[in-house]
């Protein structure tokens, strides 16, 4: 556990008078801290199922896939409940793993993902140039030539992308995981737009059930 989280827990315990007193349930502080929320989001590994910016699972698109949680429409209380007692295959996260105040931070972080200034994808964006840049800038190195992703590199599947253009830009500029950042100085918005439309042009996969080699 990081220092800041431990310190904040201690502070809360002091404020409520007893280090053994239970933390308030479903009454987190009204506005969580976005940066702390981002740290907790990663610490808990939320991105492994919900995507690095909460865009929803990149894996299958099936019903059981972890949903998009960026800018979730759930209320804070419902969000906390969905983490404590999730439906489906999501593992429950008890208060020992993540406190309610910490979840309010995560909630604030997720909300912030939806409140970013909306960037408009330029109509001039070129998939041909995007493919060239995708290769030249080394995106293929972790994500594959077609954006198919790799569990070994940690590069998620981005072809086609399942997050909006604004989120794409935000993540590339300030990635949360191990991805190297692409600063404006190195890759302009226009270039990233080209890459985005290239990725958008990647086809969805043929259903695996119709590929005999994938049913051995």
């Amino acid at each position: 556990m990081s220092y800041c989280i431990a310190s904040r827990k201690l502070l809360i315990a002091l404020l409520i008078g007893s280090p053994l007193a239970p933390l308030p349930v479903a009454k987190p502080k009204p506005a969580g801290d976005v940066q702390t929320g981002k740290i907790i989001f990663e610490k808990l590994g939320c991105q492994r199922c919900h995507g690095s910016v909460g865009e929803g699972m990149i894996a299958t698109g099936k019903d059981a896939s972890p949903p998009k949680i960026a800018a979730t429409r759930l209320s804070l209380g419902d969000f906390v409940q969905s983490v404590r007692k999730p439906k489906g295959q999501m593992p429950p996260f008890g208060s020992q793993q993540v406190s309610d105040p910490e979840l309010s931070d995560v909630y604030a972080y997720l909300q912030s993902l939806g409140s970013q200034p909306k960037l408009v994808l330029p109509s001039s964006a070129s998939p041909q140039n995007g493919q060239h840049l995708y290769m030249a800038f080394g995106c293929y190195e972790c994500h594959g030539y077609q954006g198919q992703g790799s569990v070994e590199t940690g590069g998620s599947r981005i072809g086609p992308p399942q997050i909006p253009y604004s989120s794409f830009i935000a993540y590339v500029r300030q990635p949360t995981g191990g991805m190297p950042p692409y600063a404006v100085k190195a890759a302009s918005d226009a270039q990233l737009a080209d890459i985005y439309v290239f990725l958008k042009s990647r086809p969805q996969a043929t259903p695996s059930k119709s590929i005999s080699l994938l049913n051995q």
Partner: protein
Amino acid sequence: MAPRKNASFNRRDFLKNVAAGAAVVTATPAARATPSPFEGRNATAPPISAKAELRALPRTEILTAERTGSDFMVDVIKSLGMEYVCANPGSSFRGLQESIINYGGNHSPEFITCLHEESSVAMAHGYAKIEGKPLLVLAHGTVGFQHAAMAIYNAYCDRVPVYIIGGNIIDATKRIPPVEWTHSVQDAAAMVRDFVKWDDLPTSLPHFAESAVRAYKIAMTPPMMPVVLVVDAELQENPISASASWMVPNLVLPSPPQGDSGSVAEAARLLVEAENPVLITDRTARTPAGMARLIELAETLQAPVIDEGGRMNFPTRHPLNQSERADELIANADVILGLELSDFWGAIHSFRDQIERTSRPTTKPGVKLISISAGSLFLKSNYQDFQRFTAVHVDIAADAEATLPSLTESVKRLITSDRKEALHDRGANFAAARQDDLRRARDAAAYAWDASPISTARLSSEIWAQIKGEDWSLVSDPIFLSSWPLRLWSFEKYYQFIGTSGGYGIGYGAPAAVGAALANRKYGRLSVNIQCDGDLMYAPGVLWTAAHHRIPVLNIMHNNRAYHQEVMQVQIMANRHSRGIDRAKIGTTIDDPGIDYAKLAQSMGVYAEGPISDPKDLGPAIRRAVDVVKRGQPALIDVLTQPR
């Protein structure tokens, strides 16, 4: 270390004894005719004693010997059950080599000609992964050890027994100038001592016998590691009498260390009481029994297994194999049992490589950690392969495979009928999750299915289609293929997977595969090596070794034309500095020109096709290559692939 002269078997002493006993020392007529340098000069010089005169007389050289020390060494080596000896020839062990091929009949061990000492050791590494015991490696104690060093380090990190004998010429007066001087060393084992478990410099043949058996026992006792004997050329080449006989100690392997009953009982209690126990395994299964024992423990607990892939520990399609869900299971675990983990800390932490390197535990507070590992019993200081310290709650310094039966019995004793029912429900959930994971993996594999260069998922699927009906063995590490074989194939038998290199030293893959294939040959198994291009080019001569010795192995090139891991590393630096993000290929790629691996293999007598870039051509090519391999020959298919 100062060499000690072997008083009993020194060549000069031998000749002297022969002269005294059999009176074979005679003066030649020419010698008689040669005047003494003292004659006529100093009439008052003292008379030379008869003994001294005898020494001064020219003698007929003894140029042949029916039996040498190295013959006895072969007797010892044979007693250890060595099937093969892998070596690139070297004069400092010429005596032993000749004895192996002539006195020993080139059988058990049989000489395998290697074109690089790194290949010799890595072949031994791969062989041991399949056969569970070492083969012999011979090398120069100087230049040979220097070539072999990386492969020895891999085996050391991977806890694999490799048995190495190095030649040396200790007596300075016996070295042929100039080469034998440059190929001699005071302490040959010094340069590898940091990453072998034990070494010795026997100075007599009885000493060799004892040290040879001792070395074998040490190498085979968990944690298993390489051992080195340095054998002086004199000891090898000096004649011994036909009737000479020394005892060869019986080889009795030590029992592997088991966990003490108290610690095992505590581990069992924690596991049975846990709501969400997780078993993480890495190098647990030393033998097929290890795999069966882990299955029994997991099924008894109905606990998920996360296989880190150091060995063939657990069937990939077993309902409790939950390796694809490692992150969420570890995050939710209340008890984690680590079995022979090479990196326990890494298994329960995330690490972020940005300018400020940060890490976080991925476990929840209060999780109880149990470790069973023989790695705790033997550590060295210099090389840091022992990984970051992890504070565990129960630390059982013992061999996991040997400890599992008592742990499972303890667990069984603690499980009540009510608890058994709950565990059954837990297992049913995991079974469903495993099926879902397989479906997800297949869905993910469908992306870039028809791409060219060929996706690693497609490559893996095409291979699987051709081998799944055979008695196959994957003799390579699939990590650089995004582990697709482990995700898509059904691994059920111990020999179907050989794990990783241990030390991440490139150049291991090809020779380890050939060594594993050598072990598989007598069982008639189809050995499959998915071969990375950069790795092969460290010492591609091992393809010739496979062809020359008729070692059947199917090599499928994962030819992404790069040291791709390093491409990504340079990319990280370029991005961090926001400059030249399009220049990460400089110094990292193997392109322009691309290497024609089919021609390379063909030049060494290996059947080969490629390069193949259209996925539709891949299946038929693999099928043709499989036919070649089933006829007892190596084959290679060069495939242009996606990076990972």
